[in-house]
C-alpha cells in the first residue's frame, strides 16, 4: 500500500510502498529499510488517513489511508487504537485515588490532627506568632488610651486565667477599630474593639464575650485553625494550583466550607466553656444570651437559619442566644460601677482633624 513518510531527521517527504510481514510494517525510504513492529504502534486517526509512529521509528511519521490501515490490519488495527484508551483509564484511576487521598487528608485527617498539633505546638512559638499578628493588627487598630479601663479589662483577663490551665499570660485590651468584635490571638492576647464595648449594655454582656475569648485561648482554638488552614491551604493549592477555572474554585470552596464547619464547632465550645469559667468565679453568666439576641436582631434575622449558618464561621446568633439562656446562672457582676464606667470611657472619641 502507498504511504507518505517523514524520517524525523528532515522535513523532506518520501513516498513509500508499505508491506506487512512477520508482525511489522516494512518500507524503504532514502535508501534505508524500516521495520516498525505492529505491537507498540501509535495511531492518530486524521479523517480519511492515519498517522503512525513508534519508538523504533523515533520521530519518523508514516501516513496511510485509513481504509488501507483497516483492511490490512483488521481487528489488530482496532486493538492498537484501543490501547490508548486503556492507558487513559489507568491514568484516571490513579488520579482519582490521589484526589481521594488528598480529600480525605484535608476534610478528615487534618481537622482530626489539628487539636493534637495545636496542643503540641511549643507555647513560645505560639506567643511569637501572636506577637507578629498583634504588630500587624496594631497598624490598623490602635490601643485605646484610657489607662483605668485598660487596667480593669486586664485584671478581669487574669482573674479568668487563674481558672484555666493555660500556659499563656492572658492580656485583654481595648483597641480602636471600625467594627464591633473581640478576638483571641495566638499566645493569649485578646483584643476588644471600641465598637464592641459601645455595643454591650451591661458588664455581664462584656464579661461573657471576654470569657468566650479566654476559652478560645485555653483550648488553643486559634492555633488549631491555623494548622487546619495551613495544611488544607497547602494541600489544596498543591492540587488545584492557582487556576481560576470553575472546577478549581469549587474544590477550594469545599475546602473552606469544611474549615468553617470546624470553626463553628470551636465557637460553640468556647461559648459553653466561657460560661463555665464565669460560673466557677461566681460571676453572672446571664450576659451572653441578651448579647447574642441583640446581635441577631442587628443581623436582621427573624429565626435561626441553618442556610445562613452554613456559610458562616460562627453559629447562628439566635441559636447561640437560646443555648446560652438555657445554661445561664445569676452571679456577681464582673465589673463594679466604677470599673464599668472606666471601660466605657477607655476609648474616647478621636479628635476631629483640623
Amino acid at each position: 500500500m502507498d504511504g507518505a513518510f517523514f524520517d524525523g531527521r528532515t522535513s523532506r517527504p518520501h513516498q513509500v510502498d508499505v508491506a506487512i510481514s512477520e508482525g511489522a510494517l516494512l518500507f524503504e525510504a532514502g535508501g534505508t529499510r524500516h521495520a516498525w513492529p505492529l505491537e507498540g504502534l501509535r495511531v492518530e486517526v486524521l479523517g480519511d488517513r492515519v498517522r503512525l509512529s513508534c519508538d523504533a521509528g523515533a520521530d519518523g511519521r508514516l501516513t496511510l489511508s485509513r481504509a488501507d490501515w483497516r483492511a490490512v490490519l483488521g481487528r489488530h488495527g482496532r486493538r492498537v487504537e484501543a490501547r490508548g484508551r486503556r492507558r487513559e483509564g489507568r491514568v484516571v484511576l490513579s488520579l482519582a485515588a490521589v484526589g481521594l487521598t488528598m480529600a480525605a487528608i484535608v476534610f478528615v485527617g487534618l481537622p482530626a490532627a489539628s487539636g493534637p498539633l495545636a496542643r503540641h505546638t511549643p507555647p513560645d512559638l505560639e506567643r511569637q506568632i501572636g506577637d507578629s499578628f498583634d504588630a500587624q493588627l496594631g497598624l490598623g487598630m490602635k490601643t485605646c488610651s484610657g489607662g483605668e479601663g485598660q487596667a480593669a479589662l486586664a485584671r478581669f483577663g487574669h482573674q479568668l486565667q487563674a481558672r484555666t490551665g493555660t500556659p499563656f499570660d492572658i492580656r485583654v485590651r481595648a483597641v480602636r477599630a471600625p467594627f464591633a468584635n473581640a478576638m483571641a490571638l495566638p499566645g493569649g492576647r485578646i483584643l476588644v474593639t471600641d465598637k464592641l464595648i459601645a455595643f454591650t449594655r451591661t458588664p455581664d454582656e462584656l464579661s461573657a464575650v471576654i470569657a468566650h475569648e479566654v476559652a478560645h485561648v485555653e483550648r488553643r482554638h486559634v492555633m488549631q485553625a491555623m494548622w487546619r488552614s495551613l495544611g488544607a491551604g497547602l494541600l489544596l493549592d498543591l492540587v488545584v494550583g492557582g487556576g481560576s477555572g470553575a472546577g478549581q474554585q469549587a474544590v477550594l470552596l469545599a475546602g473552606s466550607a469544611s474549615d468553617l464547619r470546624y470553626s463553628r464547632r470551636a465557637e460553640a465550645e468556647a461559648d459553653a466553656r466561657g460560661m463555665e469559667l464565669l460560673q466557677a468565679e461566681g460571676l453572672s453568666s446571664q450576659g451572653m444570651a441578651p448579647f447574642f439576641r441583640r446581635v441577631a436582631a442587628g443581623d436582621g434575622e427573624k429565626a435561626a437559619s441553618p442556610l445562613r449558618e452554613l456559610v458562616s464561621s460562627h453559629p447562628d446568633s439566635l441559636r447561640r442566644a437560646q443555648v446560652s439562656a438555657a445554661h445561664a446562672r445569676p452571679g456577681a457582676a464582673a465589673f463594679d460601677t466604677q470599673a464599668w464606667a472606666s471601660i466605657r470611657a477607655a476609648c474616647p472619641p478621636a479628635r476631629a482633624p483640623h
Partner: protein
Amino acid sequence: MFNSDNPTPEGVETLTFAQKVRLGSFLGLSVKNGLLNLVTLTLYRFWGRTEVRRRLWQAIYLNDEPFEYTGRGGELFRGFLYAMLLVGLPLLVVVAGAQFLGPKFAALIIFPIYLFLFVLFGFARFSAFRYLASRTLWRGVRFQLKGSRIRYGFSYLGYLLLSVITLGWFWPAAERRLAGPLWDGLRFGDRRFRFSLDAARKIPIYRAFIPAALVFGVLYFAVMGVIFAIRFAAQKAQPAAPDGAMIVLIYAMLLPLSVLGVLIFAPYQAARLRSVVAGISLEDARFRLEVKWWGMAMLELGNLLLLIISLGLLFPVVEARTARFLISRLKSTGTADLASAVQAPRGPGTGEGLADAFGAINL
C-alpha cells in the same frame, strides 16, 4: 499524497493553512474532561488540556499536512509539581517567615517579591511557549524556541511598569513588543522565523486603542458610580440590608459591562493580532491575518457567553472556536524552503508548571 520525493524543484513552497476543526468533537471532550476533573479533584486537567491540544493540532493543516502535538499530560503534571515545590513553597516560606520580622521588615521583603512575581510571570509565559513549540511537529520535525526566559521575564516587568507609569498608554506597544521574542526566537527545525517590529508597526493599533480606552473608561466609571449610588441609597433606607442583593446587583451590572467591553475593544484586539502577524516571516514567506473587528467581536462575545453559561466547562470549545476563527483567516504570501528543515532537539522535559500555577495558560 506527494508527487515525488521532491515536492517542488528546490523544495520551496508557498504556505497554505487550512483547518478541519469540528466543534462537536470538542463539546463531547469538554463534558468528558469536566467529569474526570470532578472525580480527580481537577488533577486530570493536565491530561485534559493535552487531549484538547492533540485534537486541535491535528485539525490544523499546512500544505495539506496536519500538525501534531506530542506533549504528555504527565509532563505538564510534573512541571506543575516542580513549580510548586521549587518556586511556590520557597515563596510561601519567605512570605510566612517575613511575618515574624515585624510589619516594616515584612513590607520590605514582600514588596520586592511582588515585583519578582511579575518577572516570574514573564518567565513562565516564555517557558510555556517554549514547551508548546517543542511539542509541536509538522512533517515529523519539531519547532523550537530560542532565547532567554530571564530576559523575557525582566522585559515583562519593565513594560508593565512603563504601562503603569503611563496609565496604560504604553500597554498596546508593550503587547506588540512582548510578541517579538516569542516569534523571533521560533524555529521550524533549524529554519528561523523572524519578527520585524517595523513590519508590525505598518498596521496601526493606537488608532483602535485610543477611542476604545476612552469610551470604556467613561463607561466603567459610570457603572461604578451607579453601583455606589445604589449602595449608598440602600444603606440609608435600611442600614442592615443584606449583602446578597448587592452582590447580585454588582454582577448584574458587570455582565453588560464586560459584553460592552468586548465590543468596544474588538477593533483593537483585531488590529493587535493583525499587527503581530504582519511582523512574522519565515524566509521569504510573510503572513497576514484577515481579522475584522466585527468577526473578532462575535468570536469573543460567543466565547464569553459559552464560558459564563457553562461555568468554564466549555473552555475546550472556546479554544476550538478561536483556533478555527484564526486559522481560517491566516494567509501567507511568498515562499519558504519547508522540505529541508533539519530536526530540532527534544526540548524541555516538563512544561508550563509556573504558567499553570499563575493560571496563565492560553493554549
